[in-house]
């Protein structure tokens, strides 16, 4: 089963839209990932391990709510909101198979975040629609390179 690929240009366009959204919504961090938990891009987050875990957990959480939606006769919930004492997480479905996740501070309300995310999604959605099922050859502009194995052992242990 073939996967999909996203080009550097598409990531740059998504980043531009996320940077504007970050300023308008006053979010602390923004992610775009697919339903499988793969991060397409993210802004204002540290380049550390926790990004991958956040994306995996968010994708899992959103998928679980979709199942819940099915139990009450809905196709899907379009968004979910988790609120804590100091921060909140807002997750919204976009382009059918992706999610946008915003980590919000104390001062940002759900309504305000939704307003700005809806606006940004109008710009982001066509880009994500383009990447959906996009082959590596298309993403590379027809200049895809051949892949080669680097070594026999994929992982080596410390011992």
């Amino acid at each position, binding site marked *: 089963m073939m996967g999909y690929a996203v080009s550097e240009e598409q990531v740059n366009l998504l980043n531009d839209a996320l940077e504007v959204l970050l300023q308008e919504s006053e979010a602390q961090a923004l992610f775009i990932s697919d339903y499988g938990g793969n991060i397409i891009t993210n802004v204002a987050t540290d380049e550390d391990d926790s990004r*991958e875990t956040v994306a995996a957990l968010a994708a899992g959480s959103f998928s679980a709510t979709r199942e819940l939606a099915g139990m009450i006769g809905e196709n899907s919930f379009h968004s979910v909101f988790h609120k804590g004492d100091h921060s909140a997480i807002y997750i919204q479905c976009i382009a059918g198979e992706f999610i946008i996740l915003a980590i919000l501070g104390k001062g940002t309300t759900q309504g305000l975040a939704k307003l700005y995310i809806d606006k940004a999604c109008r710009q982001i959605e066509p880009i994500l629609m383009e990447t959906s099922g996009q082959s*590596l050859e298309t993403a590379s502009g027809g200049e895809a390179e051949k892949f080669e*194995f680097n070594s026999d052992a*994929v992982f080596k242990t410390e011992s």
Partner: protein
Amino acid sequence: MSFVNLSKREINFKIVFYGPPLSGKTTNLEHLHEVMPEDVKGKMTMLSTQQDRTLYFDFLPLRSDAIKGYTSKFQLYTVPGQSIYNQTRKIVLTGVDGLVFVADSQWDEMEHNVESFENLQENLQTYNRSLDDIPFVLQFNKRDLPNIAPVEYLDFVLNQRDDKAVFFESVACNGDGVHETLNMVCKMVMAQFIEEHNMNVKPIAEDSAVAVS
């Protein structure tokens, strides 16, 4: 379903450890997290019940430079073994690139092995997928226990396919066979990715090649 991010030169793969309750899926990931070098592993996350049984999934991200010029990122997931959590097992299988079926070698657990293996195939069918199109490795775990079935028997029960899966014997709690299982499934996943991709790469036309004198 592999995902290539050309901006970061990353290739993402998803590996799922499947199997009956208490067969050692989480133990596999715990051991890998323990022995992998810091620059290879990410944070391990376990979504467990109060009794330390997997509720949703365990997650361990690993990275490798096994494909030249790219970072290969492997997201390792386990599924909950208990049958009441079948819906979450299905969710975890979304977009899977490679599978490890962790079987419990004890005679008493043979029925659970078979049930879980059939359940895996049913759940894959809901995504119109099958073990024929997904790189797949069998792991016969708990080989240190006294009341275990011979490997030949486990192979007969769980490996009735034209294209037989590779299997490994393991004792996941002390790490025996764990690393070998991971390396094999990751190699198979990458081999499938490279084969599918390279088949689509057009050879450089002779007239566009740069002559070097």
